[in-house]
Structure formats: structure tokens, C-alpha cells
């Protein structure tokens, strides 16, 4: 017994010793190679694409990149990042961040003007660069941009005698109803007129901002800090959206994020869908039930006097201010963001580049002819009130998405909802 004990103890000591030795070797052995940690997408085709790019960079530079999977949900992603930032953690070197997080991320970012030349920066859409510049600091470099887009089934529009996609939400509701009724009679009981993102998360903030803006109801809090959400147009917009739920949209749409909506759409079970451009390439996949049967356009206006609206989204690359290897990290960012990489992304994944020049590129247009229209969409793009609310954006967005979600579930009237949001807004931007 005693003998056995001393043996195990000696074994344990050996083990500790060898682990120590191994870690020493590991530290000195690799020499110059650094390992960068990059918080980004790791799943699906997008994830595979990013991984391939990172591997290319690793081979060229002799460094390593470890991709840290971010949650699929944007709200959850920000929560994860904020924990790293609050702890001033150097565990992540490069972050993929949303356009609306620039003020929140600002204090934790390296100023990318140090690494990007002025003419490199000016190749991007100037409005996104403006958005990403907080107090003179370029918080992140645009990677790909996004805008809310209307997807519609060309085959079904033709079948039901429509020549072009709807111009107003009213038209959309009418067309959706007719197609839905017809398809359900034709033996598709699960067919839906219109799917969108109604889930109480950042997704419905984007959707509802488009409705409100298209009806002339403003952008919740205007750039001059005026809280404008409590107005008749905004109420009309929300009540209109409420009228879709259970009629042209499934009752469960109030729990849908992007992927839930896309699942319904891609199975061929919807006539219209509001989604981001990423759904285009996936929908055209040969395995998709809607391949070759749909097109995209600008979202409808709110009534004849309304405006087109497209919520501005998009992802950007930021170098952490707490990174131990900011130079290597900035080099990786440059590589991921190069014109070549953006072009390949546009062709392979139909993600919208942030370089206007690529929208006239023949190879890009050959694969994605609809990119032509998107330049126009970006002119109608609506930014969420993230700059004016700064680090408190999450609070106004949460108040907005929770109340909009309540309206959609029938738990609250549009009038009460805008009052609730106004109350929170006024508390934040005093």
C-alpha cells in the first residue's frame, strides 16, 4: 500500500515535470509565430469561407488563427463581446462587429487609421466609414454590408397575374393574401403569404424600423436627439404589421428570427419574405425548393406617400485594444478585407461588398445581377439610432423590440407601444 502510494506520487511529479517542460518547449519552439483569436462565424458556408481565408493568411505569414464561434443571434453576440471588453481581455484579438455597436466598441478598439492608409479607407462606402468613426477614431473597417430586402416568388406572381413586385405594404398584403388563399386551396395548407422576423430581438428592431420609416414615422430617436417614435405614422405602421400576423403571416412569426423565416421561405412555403441578402445564395442553391423561382427588390413604401426603407446592417472588423499582437491582428484584418477577398465573398456567398467599385464589376454582376439594384437600396438605407444613443443603444433597441413584439402578439396596441418606447427614449437621451 505504502509502496503504491509513493509510486503514484512519483508518477505525478513526473507528469508535472514533463508538462512544465512541454510548455517551455512550446513557448520557445514556435519562435515568431503568434496565435490570433478571431471572434466570427464558424458554421455554414460563411464559416467555411472565413476559415479558408484565415488559413491562407496563416500560411503566408506563419502565424495561426483560431476562430472563436460567435452566437448566431446578434444580441447574444454583443453580450458575449461585452464581457470580454468589460474584463479588458486580450483573449480575442479581432472581432467581427455589427454596424450598430461602434459607439459601444469604440473605447475597446484600436484606431484603424494607424494601419489603413487614407486612400484605402476612402474606397469603402463613405456612409459606413462615417458610421464607424466615433470621436475621430476608426473603430472598425467595413467587411460586408447588409440591408433589409424584399424576396418575392417570380413564379407565383406570374401564376396569380401580377406583373411586378408590390410598391406599397398595402399592395403586398393584398397580393400575399390572394396567393396564400390560392396555394392553400391547391393543397399546401402550410403556405404563408409573407414571412419576416418578429422575434423579440434585434431582428424585429430592424423590421419595425423599416415599417415605421416607410410610413414616415422617423427613426425612433433622430440624430438631433429628439425622441420622435410617438407619432401617428409610427402607430399606423405598427398596427399595419399587427394586421399581418395570423392573416398573411403565420402566428408564429413573432418567434421568427432570420433563419426561421428562411426555413419557411426556402421550403417553398412563402410568397414574400423580408430578409438580409445572405438568403439569396442559399435560396439559389440547387437543393433549395425556390431555386430560380425568386428575385429581390426594395421593400415596399408605407402607403402611396411613403418612402422605401432598408435597415442598414452589416459587419465590420475591429482590432481589440487589449490585443497583445495588434500589428499581426491588423494585418489579418487587412487580408480579410482586401478587395480580392470582398470580391470572392460577393461571388461565392452573395454578401454585399463595402467597396462601391465592386457593384460595377462584371464578374460579380454575372453571379449576382441583383447587386445593381442594391446601390439604389443603400441610398434609401436607414441607420438605426445607435450613434445618438451610444452605449445605451441596447436599452432603446430592447424597449423597441419588446414593445413591437408585444404589438405583434396582440398584447399591446401600437399607441401604447410607442408611448412605452418614448418613455425609455426620453430617459436615455436627456
Amino acid at each position, binding site marked *: 500500500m505504502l509502496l503504491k502510494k509513493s509510486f503514484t506520487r512519483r508518477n505525478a511529479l513526473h507528469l508535472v515535470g514533463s508538462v512544465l517542460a512541454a510548455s517551455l518547449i512550446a513557448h520557445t519552439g514556435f519562435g515568431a509565430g503568434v496565435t490570433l483569436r478571431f471572434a466570427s462565424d464558424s458554421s455554414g458556408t460563411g464559416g467555411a469561407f472565413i476559415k479558408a481565408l484565415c488559413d491562407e493568411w496563416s500560411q503566408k505569414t506563419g502565424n495561426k488563427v483560431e476562430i472563436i464561434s460567435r452566437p448566431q443571434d446578434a*444580441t447574444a453576440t454583443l453580450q458575449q463581446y461585452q464581457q470580454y471588453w468589460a474584463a479588458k481581455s486580450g483573449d480575442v484579438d479581432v472581432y467581427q462587429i455589427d454596424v450598430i455597436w461602434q459607439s459601444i466598441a469604440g473605447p475597446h478598439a484600436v484606431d484603424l487609421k494607424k494601419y489603413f492608409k487614407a486612400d484605402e479607407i476612402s474606397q469603402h462606402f463613405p456612409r459606413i466609414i462615417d458610421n464607424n468613426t466615433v470621436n475621430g477614431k476608426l473603430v472598425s473597417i467595413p467587411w460586408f454590408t447588409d440591408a433589409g430586402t424584399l424576396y418575392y416568388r417570380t413564379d407565383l406572381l406570374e401564376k396569380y397575374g401580377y406583373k411586378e413586385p408590390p410598391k406599397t405594404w398595402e399592395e403586398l398584403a393584398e397580393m400575399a393574401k390572394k396567393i396564400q388563399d390560392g396555394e392553400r386551396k391547391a393543397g399546401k395548407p402550410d403556405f404563408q403569404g409573407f414571412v419576416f422576423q418578429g422575434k423579440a*430581438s434585434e431582428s424585429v428592431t430592424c423590421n419595425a424600423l423599416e415599417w415605421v420609416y416607410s410610413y414616415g414615422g422617423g427613426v425612433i430617436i433622430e440624430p438631433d436627439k429628439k425622441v420622435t417614435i410617438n407619432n401617428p405614422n409610427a402607430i399606423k405602421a405598427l398596427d399595419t404589421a399587427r394586421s399581418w400576423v395570423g392573416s398573411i403571416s403565420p*402566428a408564429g412569426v*413573432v418567434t421568427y428570427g432570420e433563419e426561421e423565416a428562411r426555413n419557411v421561405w426556402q421550403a417553398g412555403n412563402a410568397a414574400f419574405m423580408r430578409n438580409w441578402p445572405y438568403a439569396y445564395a442559399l435560396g439559389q442553391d440547387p437543393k433549395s425548393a425556390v431555386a430560380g423561382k425568386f428575385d429581390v427588390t426594395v421593400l415596399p413604401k408605407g402607403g402611396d406617400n411613403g418612402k422605401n426603407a432598408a435597415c442598414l446592417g452589416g459587419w465590420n472588423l475591429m482590432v481589440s485594444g487589449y490585443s497583445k499582437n495588434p500589428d499581426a491582428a491588423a494585418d489579418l484584418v487587412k487580408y480579410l478585407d482586401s478587395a480580392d477577398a470582398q470580391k470572392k465573398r460577393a461571388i461565392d456567398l452573395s454578401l454585399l461588398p463595402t467597396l462601391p467599385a465592386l457593384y460595377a464589376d462584371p464578374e460579380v454582376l454575372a453571379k449576382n445581377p441583383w447587386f445593381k439594384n442594391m446601390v439604389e437600396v443603400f441610398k434609401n438605407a436607414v441607420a438605426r439610432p445607435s450613434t445618438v444613443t451610444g452605449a445605451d443603444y441596447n436599452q432603446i433597441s430592447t424597449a423597441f423590440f419588446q414593445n413591437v413584439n408585444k404589438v405583434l*402578439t396582440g398584447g399591446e396596441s401600437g399607441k401604447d407601444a410607442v408611448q412605452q418606447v418614448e418613455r425609455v427614449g426620453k430617459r436615455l437621451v436627456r
Partner: protein
Amino acid sequence: MAKQIDLLERQRRLAWFLIVPAVFVVFLVIGYPLIQVLLYSVLKYKLDGVTPASFVGLSNYLFILTDPDFWLAVQNTLIFSVCSVTLECVLGLAVALVANSKFKGRSILRVAILIPWAIPTVVSSKIWAWMFNDIYGVVNVLLINFHLISQKIAFLATPATALPVIIAVDVWKTTPFMALLLLAGLGLIPGDLYEAASIDGASKIRQFFSLTLPLVMPTLLVALIFRTLDALRVFDIFYVMVGGQGNMATMAIYNQQWLVSFLDAGIGSAASVIILVIIMVFVVLYTRFSKTSFE
């Protein structure tokens, strides 16, 4: 005499010496965070790493106690806790009684009932959320196929249906835990008591109410305390199944929102303190009840 006092004194010192590490650890893991939370709860303190903290007195508490969202969260949590714990108790006891009786394949059954408990809550909640999906969820398909409903139901869309669904999922998941605890309690009851009862002519039902139930009561009460405290802190099932729906928040979700989403350590900490007080009320009630029933 002097020697004896000396000895007592030494014993006392030794006792202190032995207890100090434990006190230190308790202070480190419970006392320090608790004091920290109390301290933060009277500050205006954003965790963005930029804004400096400032003292605001009790205004964080005032804000929460006048926030209708908070009271809605309390209401949701209480409904969830009372319903789920009651059902889990009743069903758990039933399962335990079955598993405690002697029959073939008993050990396999004992393992099988543990499966729902063994699956991580996040995973099982997500699976259930898919099963309750309004378009492609299996629950809707089954209900339609058996002609129980004519139109598919969006179970997770409104509190009226989502809350019962979530309670059902929790009951599915936690009944095995209850059953296991109660099974241990049942195993402690000596078999000859039942023999004696049978000879005296007590029916099976009489035996249950006069023997089994009172004797398993101490275990049941411990299980109840565990489950109630667990249920009052519920986060994962709600977070996965209904996400950020404002009218479906629980106390823990309300707390998490302020602390994590809004990075507001002041209001977040004040919410933690209020929740702590609410949970303490239940602890005191339970300990009172267990004292009166056992003394």
C-alpha cells in the same frame, strides 16, 4: 484547576484555529460577492469601461420596484415555480413508487427515467422549441393528424400558451430528479412496517397515507426546497424557448438583461438583491414549516 482552564483555553484556541480556514472560504465565496453586490446596488455604475461610477442611494431599488416589467417577471416566475414544482412532486412521487416496487427490469427503468435529467437543459429546451414550432413542429403535425386541432398553433408566440408549454418541458425534465430523491427516501422505510400493516388489515391506500407519505415527508421536503429555489432562479428554459420576449421574462432574465445586455451593474445588482430577498422569503417559510412538522 488552573491546569484545567488552561486546557479549556487551548481547546478553544484550537477550535478557532481549525474553524478559521472554513470561515475564510465561506467569506471568500459568499460574503465578499454579497458585499460587492450590495455596494454596487447603490451606485450608478455602467460596465462599459468608460463611465465612472457614482453614488445614487436607493434610486436603483426605486427604479426596479416601480418598473412594471419587473413585477411581470416576478409574476411569471411565481406561476412557473408553483405549477412546475407541484406537478413534479406529484409525478415524481408516482414514478418513485413504481420504481420502488419489485418487478423485472427495474434497474433498466431506473436508468431510463434519468435520461431527461441527464440532457443539458439548453439542448433539450431547443429540441422542445423545435417540436413546438408552428409550421414544422412535430407537436402541431401530430395534433393535426389526430384531428385534435384544425389550425396549427404558434405555441411559443403568446404567454397564454408558452407558459404552459415551458412548465410542461420543465416537468418532463425535472420529474426524474424528484423521483430519484424520493426513491432514496422510500428505500429508507423498513419493509416490516408494511408487513405489520398488512397483518393489521390496512389497505394499500391506507398504507400509503398512514405509512409511506409521513415517512417520506422529510425527503419530500428537502426535495421541495431544492426544486423551489431552483425554479425561482429559472433562466435557461425561458431564454432558449422564448428568448427576449418582454412579457415572458423571469426574474433571472430581468436581472441578466440589466447586468449583461445593458451592462448596468447598479440596477443589475439592485435587482439581484431584491431577488435574493424574495428567495429568502421562501427559504424562511420552508424552514418554519419543516420545524413545526418535525418537532
